[in-house]
């Protein structure tokens, strides 16, 4: 018997491998994606009956390819696959060999996929969006949320980026220096991202930004075991049990950022990794070097200006200069972030620290309305409860006098 949860995990983890192989085969991202979807449907039908295949990725590649070829034949007898000569170099022309290697050379396919997503002709926002969509299989909605744009706008971006991918794929084999990024959303995705980052680093051993990226992913993911409590509620960095942090990942992350810094070629990943490293080095929250973190966020604001960076910097500022300064820093962004959960979460927290509880409550209410997950909402509700608790004795005191 094969349960659905197992199938779901298997499909998710096979996705980059299978999609990479299918893309190499069909040289068209839409066809590859469709083939993968169809293979997944077949898997859902047949795996529960026949049991799981020994190698789910290989199974999905084979089935996806067969289904898509059938489809293509049925749909249009005249339209053949793109001419080998026109679109491929000699290495790729040995497609039969390549096919046989499917089983063993996933790594190349995944990297190829990643490079397509990260081609320098694509603007950065599109690179990440496409990488998330293709490599990690996130929904457009999830990606749009991460990038603070509407779903329609993001869909458009992805479509635009995709349109150029087929062309970009043809020149992939030339080899491009690129930096990849996948967001940390859920543990399997984080692990996949770390794996890809390590692969990338092994290919480009002297790129400080890839070291920075790998370090960043490791240092952030190291905190995963402490980020949620037993009820699944989100635990703030300050409240996390640091004993749960994964020390192996931290050691590796620190070693990598150390190695990256020697190049004296800073970049956004290195800066973010350096920030994460300062958190990782602090045995207790009060040991955190917030002054340095404030400076690093300042540098990041210059490299990669974004309201989210400023929002993060404001947290550091609140620790260094107090909540008043932090609040002044984020207020101008209000119009831009009127639909952003974290903006109202942070605003509420600063207001609460200032004792402006009524205003804090309004901000927290708005945050709850914008929360993307129940854990986020629960976390804000915790603040609200604290506010109510704190204000209750005052009211009763008033009543008694």
């Amino acid at each position: 018997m094969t349960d659905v949860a197992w199938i779901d995990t298997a499909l998710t983890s096979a996705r980059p491998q299978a999609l990479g192989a299918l893309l190499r085969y069909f040289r068209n991202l839409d066809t590859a994606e469709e083939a993968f979807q169809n293979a997944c449907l077949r898997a859902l039908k047949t795996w529960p009956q026949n049991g799981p295949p020994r190698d789910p990725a290989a199974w999905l590649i084979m089935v996806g390819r067969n289904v898509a070829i059938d489809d293509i034949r049925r749909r249009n007898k005249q339209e053949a696959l793109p001419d080998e000569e026109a679109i491929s170099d000699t290495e790729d022309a040995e497609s039969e060999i390549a096919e046989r290697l499917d089983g063993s050379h996933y790594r190349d396919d995944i990297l190829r996929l990643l490079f397509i997503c990260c081609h320098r002709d694509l603007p950065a926002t599109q690179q990440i969006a496409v990488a998330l969509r293709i490599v990690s299989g996130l929904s457009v909605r999830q990606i749009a949320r991460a990038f603070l744009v509407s779903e329609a706008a993001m869909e458009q971006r992805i479509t635009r980026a995709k349109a150029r991918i087929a062309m970009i794929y043809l020149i992939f084999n030339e080899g491009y220096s690129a930096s990849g990024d996948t967001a940390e959303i859920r543990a399997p995705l984080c692990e996949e991202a770390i794996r890809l980052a390590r692969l990338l680093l092994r290919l480009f051993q002297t790129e400080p930004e890839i070291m920075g990226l790998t370090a960043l992913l490791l240092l952030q993911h190291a905190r995963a075991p402490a980020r949620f409590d037993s009820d699944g509620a989100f635990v703030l960095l300050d409240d996390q049990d640091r004993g749960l942090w994964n020390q192996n990942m931290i050691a590796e992350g620190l070693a990598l950022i150390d190695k990256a810094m020697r190049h004296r070629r800073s970049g956004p990943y290195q800066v973010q990794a350096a920030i994460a490293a300062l958190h990782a080095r602090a045995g207790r929250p009060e040991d955190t070097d917030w002054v340095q973190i404030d400076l690093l966020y300042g540098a990041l604001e210059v490299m990669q200006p974004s309201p989210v960076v400023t929002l993060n910097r404001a947290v550091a500022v609140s620790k260094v200069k107090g909540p008043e300064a932090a609040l002044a820093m984020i207020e101008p962004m209000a119009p831009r972030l009127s639909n952003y959960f974290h903006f109202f979460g942070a605003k509420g927290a600063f207001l609460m620290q200032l004792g402006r509880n009524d205003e804090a409550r309004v901000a927290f209410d708005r945050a709850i309305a914008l929360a993307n997950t129940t854990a986020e909402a629960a976390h804000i509700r915790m603040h609200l409860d604290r506010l109510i608790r704190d204000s209750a004795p005052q009211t009763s005191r008033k009543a008694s006098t």
Partner: protein
Amino acid sequence: MLYAILCYHDEDTVGSWTAEHDAAVIGKLSVVQKKLADQRRLGPVARLLPTTSATTLRKDDPPLVIDGPFAETKEQLLGFYVVDCENLDGALDVARDLGRANPGGAYEIRPVGSLTHGSLPT
């Protein structure tokens, strides 16, 4: 006679172990290690961080720092040190000192993830 046992494995495979699987393997290894330690036959045991964290110092004149693990095939592994340094720069300083004393070849510098000191009689 003391013997060094050098551990080789596919990094991709080991790197993709889940935390539970990793812990289970370490648990099984520690049983073997304890047996040796109790007999005062176990020297230091180090688990190295992945090769992505490696840096290589070619002992040329002047010495050359290269990112990544030692990748040549014409030289062979002849020995190793474990040194305590503030950071990678510190480790490279030590390697340069050693290199001046014994030029030629290379040192690969790898951060140690975990270290047990063992139980050899001194």
